[in-house]
């Protein structure tokens, strides 16, 4: 599956770069850049998202910019779901973030929507909702309602955009969480996959005709990625995929075959993010149209 296994394994051994996103509800990228450079930080601005920066200092959490919510500390790959539907979000009136906690994507969506329209930030885990609420308020998010449903049972409503960053086995976060494989098992992958197949159908059903959904995970397992998207394409007429591309960010196409199973050829339009290509965590993204 991987183009360069040695480079892939070497990347997993390295710690993740320290990255953050400028919260444009409170400050511009230029303002934050000049403030943080005055502390002597070396910053690299991402070509594919002008609000995204990598810092050479470990101290980004102990700055005034962090205290005042002008920046949000976030892994680069996790910024991708809102980035690939930026235009849709700018025009959206109502958006669902289906598995929202702890809020990195919700705060990014709110910034893209300039705090207008409505976001429903839902999460099943009530404990994680505390972190979600804290992060939304710290970021100055107004246009968001927090709900606590099992997404399967979210009351019917039509959304312009749905973000489904699904609970997953999180294999792609190994650079951040050394012990992620302690809880990993083929059974866990299979259990996540079953849940994801239920959630992706529900999320699709919540879309308005013409609406857009992002399905994403931070894992490598095809059972939780292409197989789930294949399940959607097979079970919902009117679902289609849009090719995901992020200018200046290297991605690979979704795989169309795994362990003898042939997927709908359209799943090649999904993308896999490998850690060694952009020095990030691992990620998977699909952009679905209704």
């Amino acid at each position, binding site marked *: 599956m991987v183009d360069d296994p040695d480079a892939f394994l070497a990347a997993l051994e390295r710690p993740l770069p320290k990255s953050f996103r400028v919260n444009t509800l409170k400050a511009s990228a230029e303002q934050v850049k000049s403030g943080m450079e005055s502390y002597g930080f070396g910053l690299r601005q991402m070509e594919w998202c002008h609000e995204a920066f990598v810092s050479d200092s470990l101290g980004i959490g*102990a700055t005034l910019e962090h*205290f*005042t919510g002008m920046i949000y500390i976030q892994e680069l790959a996790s910024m991708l779901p809102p980035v690939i539907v930026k235009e849709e979000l700018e025009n959206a009136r109502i958006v669902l973030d289906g598995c929202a906690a702890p809020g990195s994507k919700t705060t990014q969506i709110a910034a893209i929507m300039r705090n207008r329209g409505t976001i429903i930030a839902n999460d099943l885990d009530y404990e994680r909702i505390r972190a979600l609420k804290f992060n939304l308020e*710290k970021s*100055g998010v*107004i246009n968001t*309602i*927090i*709900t606590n449903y099992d997404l399967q049972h979210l009351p019917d409503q039509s959304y312009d955009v749905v973000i489904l960053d699904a609970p997953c086995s999180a294999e792609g976060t190994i650079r951040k969480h050394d012990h992620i494989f302690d809880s990993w098992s083929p059974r866990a992958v299979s259990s996540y996959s079953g849940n994801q197949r239920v959630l992706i159908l529900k999320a699709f059903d919540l879309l308005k005709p013409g609406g857009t959904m992002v399905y994403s995970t931070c894992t490598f397992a095809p059972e939780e990625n292409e197989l789930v998207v294949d399940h959607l394409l097979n079970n919902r007429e009117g679902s289609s995929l849009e090719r995901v591309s992020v200018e200046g960010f290297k991605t690979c196409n979704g795989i169309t075959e795994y362990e003898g199973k042939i997927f709908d050829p359209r799943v090649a339009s999904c993308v896999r993010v490998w850690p060694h290509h952009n020095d990030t965590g691992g990620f998977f993204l699909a952009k679905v149209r209704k």
Partner: protein
Amino acid sequence: MNRRMRRHEDQDRGPKKEQMDASEVKENTLKYFEERFGFPRAIFDGYSIYMGPKGRLYLGPAKVPPNLRIVSPGLLIARADSGIKPSTNLFQLFGNLVDRNIISLSKEQTEKFVMGTDMILSKTDLGDASDGYVLVRYLDYNLGCALLKGTTLKNMVPKAKRLALNFI
């Protein structure tokens, strides 16, 4: 009236909520924000104000699907259970629009303030600020809310937000 209540009355903490209904509380809060801090009402246009428990007021989206059970709506902007206390998060978002009752801190004072420390100010630090809630700033950074009484600045930064700054 006991001493504690009198002390509250001496300061400009906005009207009490006694026997006020929700719309009155909302109206009084906006009026207080406008008079004490110069917040233009227009910043609240296009949003709804929600009332939560313990006098908590939230600024949230105007349009919400009616069939949803809401856990939390938008941004906590004030607590209006005993006087009106603006939230630190409101000041950090809209602080640039405040034009009065501002306390500007030095670098050293800022380091203490963000850690949650109360402090005694010199008279020259006070500027035009009068007793009551104030916006606290360092340069262009809106740090949050504090309660000024005389030269004492009582810190209102929520515990979860407090931070030891290494870079300023």
